[in-house]
């Protein structure tokens, strides 16, 4: 798009091109809205609760060890294994904003290209037809 030669297009073609760019701009806008809504701290709640429950199981296993001839240490191992599992899910969730930020930067670069193209189209149309 940055290399497009808008000056060679007719007025109608320029307006059509502007409409196509507007469609793409609207798609980016919708994607931005999705990114804003899709990420919230509440997403950490579920893995956080699971982590708490499995942590409690681990502690209970340790505490009951003298009464159960150490067999409850198995509970600790299972709880700990689950904690690792939840922890990885937690880390995955934690990485989501990073990914969304990267995507926002990509969309911004594309948005700038679109904005520059639209401004060029506007400048050409203004030069040919006068102000709208």
């Amino acid at each position, binding site marked *: 798009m940055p290399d497009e030669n808008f000056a060679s297009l007719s007025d109608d073609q320029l307006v059509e091109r502007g409409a196509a760019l507007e469609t793409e701009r609207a798609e980016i806008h919708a994607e931005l809205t999705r990114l804003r809504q899709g990420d919230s701290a509440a997403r950490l709640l579920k893995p956080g609760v699971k982590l708490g429950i499995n942590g409690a199981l681990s502690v209970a296993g340790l505490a009951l060890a003298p009464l159960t001839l150490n067999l409850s240490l198995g509970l600790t191992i299972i709880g*700990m294994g689950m904690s690792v599992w939840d922890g990885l899910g937690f880390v995955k969730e934690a990485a989501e904003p990073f990914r969304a930020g990267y995507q926002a930067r990509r*969309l911004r670069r594309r948005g700038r290209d679109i904005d520059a193209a639209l401004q060029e189209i506007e400048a050409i149309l203004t030069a040919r037809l006068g102000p709208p």
Partner: protein
Amino acid sequence: MSKLSLTEPNQAGGSDLVSYLSRWVTLSACALLFYWLGSLRLWQPDVSEATLHTAKLTLVILSAGSWVACALAAMYRHHAYRTMMRELDETSLVIERAQKTSDRIKLFKAKIDAQKTLT
């Protein structure tokens, strides 16, 4: 002009991979710990206090380690979340500016149509 792909192609695949790997890591870690505790014969009546202490201490350290890792992940997420919001705000500004330009271009359509009618 190449159209922008609005969805990350590897996003869903990446999540699946993390889930799959986490399952394997967890199951392997559990199996290894069971094997290790079995080799220590912790459930035998004559197990020594020192062995028991070592086993418990190891479990506590591993549990605490996973909790610390989660806390660090939460802190990192907070930082990444603020960065993401700033990125989204800046991108929104660019998109809003483009919308205003686009709205002005739409006004030219009426002007062009009017000129065609005159000619």
